Each structure stands twice: as structure tokens, then as C-alpha cells.
């Protein structure tokens, strides 16, 4: 119990630091959101009144505390460009990015884990070289390029789906999943390569351990040794990279959304940055950091679940 509490407190403090960094980095960014909204020809009175309206005339620490207080109430401020609450803007885009993330993580694990184990099994001179070669290629290919290729092959040549169409979950669940499958694959491919590499090395590492020899000496066949003993031990280091993979899935989805013209967080963020819509950018950065932190918290819990040796210290 103490372990979870500790992890939770750690997450809480990280969140505070994230809000501090986010808030103050937006303070020192050059450029004035008021001027960008009113134009450089605006007169002094107009500028002053908009400043007061947006609360920009107060001292920085006061604004920070007010800002945090508003976040706690679910109020992330109002987008300068859309004149809509940031919270609502993110909320409408969230399902797209979220399903993209979940599906690509599922694909990564569902493909990466079996392939990782198999590649450890067939790690002889030729097999090992082949696996390293293929995974190296997929590690090097950026996901947006994979995305473009997938659109070419499945959308333009094979015409299995119409590129650029997004169907929301509430309209038609089956079509909705279909429309995010390809972008998810594009995000998952390099991560599958990472999982394969880590898992392969980890399995090979575990296979040398004494407990494996003992398991064989009990009369278990190699399938049982793998299933009952090796996999669970080998997965532990993979969970560590899973945290990094999830962050990279998030970053990948920002770019891949552009390629597939999906109305997710990524496109909103890019347009917000382009328009210097600082409250919106701020809100999304917070959202993304919170998501990453929360996922890492879940992974810590998962760790404890798999490895009984993890102590409280």
C-alpha cells in the first residue's frame, strides 16, 4: 500500500513541477497574445482593456496561482483564436488521439511480444542477423513516412478505405476503428521493432540464468520453461521501455494525425502553435504531460504486480 502512496505522491509533485515549467516558459516566450489578436495597429486603450479582460495585468505569481486554481476547476482558459474554452476544444479532439494511442499500443504489444520471443528462439547466426536487420530498418523509418506508404498502398492502390476520412465512435464504431487502424499501424511499427529488440535480448539474458537450468532439470520441455518461467522474468525490462514507448506513441500520433488528416489533438496543437494561441497550447501541453505521468504511474503499479521483489525503499 505504501508503495502506491509513494508513487502517487511522486506523481503529484511532478505534476506541480510540470505546471510551473509550463506556466513560466509561456511567460518568457516572446510575442504578445493581445497584440496577435488585435493586430499591431490597435490603440493603447483597446490593448489595456483586453489585457485586463484576459487577466494579463496582474503580477506573475498571482496569475500562476489563479491559473492552477482554474485548472483544478476544469477551466483551462479560453482559446484566443477560437474564442471557445480550451477544455471543450481538447475534449472534442480527445477520442481521436486516445483511440489512436490505445490501438497502436495494443498492436505494438500484440505483435511485438510474440515476435520478440520467437526471435530469441531463432537467434542463430542467420536468424539473428535477419531480425537485427529488419528491426533496424523499422527503427530508422519515421512513422509519418510509413503512414504515407500505407495510404499509398491501402488507400490509393488497393482502395480498401478512403484516405482522410474519419468516422467518430458515436456514428459507427466499426467504421471508426477502421479509420484509425492504419494510422495506428504507422505509429506502432517502429515501436514493435523496439519491443522485439528489448524482449529478444531480455529473453536471451534470462535463458542463461540458473533457474532456467533448474526448470529443465525438473523435466519441463522448452515450451513450458518459456511459458512458466522465462517470459514473466523477461517482460520486466520491457515494461520499463513501455513507458518510453507510450510517450513516443503520443508524440507519433501528433505527426501521424497530420498525414491521415485526423481531427485529433495533434492537429489542434500544431494549428495552435502556428497561431500563437498560447492558452490552447498551454492547455494541451498540460494534458499531454498529465497523460504521460498517469501512464507512468500505471506502469509502476504494473511493475509491482509482476515483480514481488520490489520493495518500498
Amino acid at each position: 500500500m505504501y508503495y502506491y502512496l509513494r508513487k502517487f505522491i511522486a506523481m503529484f509533485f511532478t505534476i506541480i513541477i510540470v505546471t510551473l515549467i509550463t506556466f513560466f516558459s509561456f511567460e518568457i516566450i516572446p510575442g504578445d497574445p493581445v497584440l496577435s489578436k488585435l493586430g499591431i495597429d490597435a490603440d493603447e486603450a483597446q490593448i489595456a482593456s483586453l489585457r485586463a479582460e484576459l487577466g494579463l495585468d496582474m503580477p506573475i505569481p498571482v496569475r500562476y496561482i489563479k491559473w492552477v486554481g482554474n485548472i483544478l476547476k476544469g477551466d483551462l482558459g479560453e482559446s484566443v483564436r477560437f474564442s471557445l474554452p480550451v477544455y471543450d476544444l481538447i475534449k472534442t479532439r480527445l477520442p481521436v488521439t486516445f483511440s489512436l494511442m490505445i490501438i497502436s499500443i495494443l498492436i505494438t504489444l500484440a505483435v511485438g511480444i510474440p515476435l520478440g520471443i520467437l526471435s530469441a528462439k531463432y537467434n542463430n547466426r542467420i536468424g539473428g542477423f535477419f531480425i537485427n536487420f529488419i528491426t533496424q530498418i523499422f527503427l530508422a523509418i519515421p512513422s509519418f513516412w510509413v503512414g504515407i506508404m500505407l495510404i499509398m498502398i491501402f488507400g490509393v492502390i488497393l482502395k480498401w478505405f478512403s484516405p482522410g476520412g474519419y468516422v467518430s465512435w458515436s456514428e459507427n464504431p466499426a467504421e471508426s476503428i477502421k479509420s484509425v487502424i492504419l494510422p495506428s499501424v504507422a505509429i506502432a511499427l517502429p515501436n514493435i521493432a523496439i519491443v522485439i529488440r528489448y524482449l529478444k535480448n531480455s529473453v536471451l539474458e534470462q535463458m542463461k540464468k540458473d533457474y532456467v537450468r533448474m526448470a529443465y532439470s525438473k523435466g519441463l520441455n522448452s515450451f513450458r520453461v518459456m511459458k512458466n518461467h522465462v517470459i514473466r522474468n523477461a517482460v520486466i525490462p520491457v515494461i520499463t521501455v513501455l513507458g518510453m514507448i507510450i510517450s513516443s506513441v503520443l508524440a507519433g500520433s501528433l505527426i501521424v494525425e497530420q498525414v491521415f488528416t485526423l481531427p485529433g489533438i495533434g492537429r489542434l496543437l500544431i494549428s495552435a502553435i502556428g497561431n500563437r494561441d498560447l492558452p490552447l497550447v498551454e492547455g494541451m501541453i498540460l494534458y499531454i504531460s498529465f497523460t504521460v505521468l498517469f501512464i507512468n504511474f500505471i506502469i509502476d503499479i504494473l511493475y509491482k504486480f509482476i515483480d514481488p521483489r520490489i520493495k518500498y525503499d
Partner: protein
Amino acid sequence: MNNLLSIENLNIKFKSKKTYTKVVTDVSFDIKKGEILGLVGESGCGKTITSLSIPGLLPKDAIVENGKIIFDGHNIMDFNEKELTEIRGNRISFIFQEPSTSLNPLMPVGNQILENIVIHKKISKEEAKKSVISLMKKVGLSDTENMYKKYPHELSGGQKQRIVIAAAVSCNPALIIADEPTTALDVTIQAGILELLKELNAEYGSSILFISHDLALVNQMCDRIIVMYAGFIIEFSEAENIISSPLHPYTNGLIKSIPTESKKGKKLYSVEGRVSHLRENEKKCPFASRCTIAQDICFKSVPELRELIPGHFVRCFLAKGDKNG
């Protein structure tokens, strides 16, 4: 007594880059039913490799050149993997040196014993669990119900080794191979484990191949002793013959290096140098380079294992049938 296991002319080599290193050369010995046979030698002399070869557990890069391993009338060398898994843990089981790494850190210890039973016996899980509990009591563990669910890191070294032993004896095997079973344990715990092995040997009649680098320990435990050096059996006889009248200069050195009351205050003897294996086709006595009495002949050909005194075998050109070799 009948022979439970006979090893005949076992030769094992490892491939390293372009050359082969021979780690076991012409090893032949028998284990009788109910016997405790000692296998002594320093690290790297091939004793572990010899023992692993018995139920086909050699690492993948080891090559068995020739030889027979006859267990219960069958040559195990001819067995396929499935037949081997039926023997392992069931008829031949292992106790390894390092109890803290021999157990899977992520599996409750009780299940690690249970596993050995359920793959060999067709019994329900409840029955198997009951027999695990009684096995744990048998090997001297207390609070067994509670300990069943514990993970290896929650147990002491001695408790872990008792778990390993419980798994090893769970199917009442004909042969237990104990590879340095007490080396990693405290001296106070060692005695208890050795006592337990002797009890299990007496009660179930399981033969034990007891492997150790410690000649004094092997002498306490075993009926007969094999001394190995650089992959060769260099001396083989009843335990008392080996200890009281060793014929090989290496065995002699080992005995001289055992600390005893009479040697108190004096510098302890040690055999200079380290084990070096012969290259393939190299012709000399494997011990020649460390031997204090070596002569020209020792560097020219490999000595044969010969029965110098009835029941006492030695691989040395210079050994004579008198007391001091």
C-alpha cells in the same frame, strides 16, 4: 549391488572460435544403487559438465564426441528430448550450487516444487499440493503452509536450498545429482543440508552423485570417490583408500591442503598454478605442468587409468603400489 548408472568413455568438447577445448576425456564410472559417489576436483575440471551430460542438460555449444550413458539398462544418449524430459526430475534430479539463483524469483516456492510433481504424475492439484507440504516438512522446513506462498527473496539461503532439495526428491528419483549443494551456504547450515541428504539417501535408497571441490567434505559423505583433473579421471577408489593412501600427486596435494589440527600454525600446502586443459591431440599428462615430481615421460604421452592396487585406479606413470605413491 547393481549398477544404476554406467558412464562409458565419455568425451565432451567445446568449440571456441577455431579450436576445440576438450573438457571431458575418457570418463568412465558406475554408480551403484543406493550409493553416494563423490566427484572431486577444482573449478573447471569438468565435474559439472560430466554431471550435466547425464540427463542431457549440456549447454548448446558442448559437443559429445562419443561415449555411453547407461541408466537403468538404457543408453540415455539415444533418447530424444521427450524421453529425456520424462527422466529429468522424475528418475534423475538435480540440486544446484546456488540456491538463490536456482529458484525463479517471480514464482512462489511451493509452486516450484509443485511443478516438478504435476509434470510427472497424473494427480489432482490438491493432492499434489498436499504432497508438496509434506515434502517441505520432510526437508526440515517449518510453517510450511505459510512458506508455500512465499517468494524466494523472502527465504534464507538454507531454506531455499531445502526447497530445491524438496523439488529434487519430489518424484522419488533413483539418482540425485548434487552439484556443490552446500558451497554457497554458511558452515552452520551446511551440516544440516548434508545430514538431510544422507537421510534421504538412507530412507528412499536414492543414489547420490555428490560433486564438490572439498575433499574432506566428500570423504564424510561418500562411499567411493572419483578425483577429476582437467577433464580426466585421475584417481578412483573407496573413500578411505583415497584419503589414507592417495596414489596421484594431485590427490596427495589436495589432502595436504586440508586444514587439520596437526597443521595448526603451519603454512597450508597449496598446489601451485591453475588447471589448464590439453589442446586437442596434445600428448602429455594433464597434470604434468603443475606436478612436482614430473619426469620426461610425463610430457610425452597421456597416462592410462590403471588399476594399480585392486579397486584403486590411478592415471599416473610414476605412481607405485606402495603407501606414499
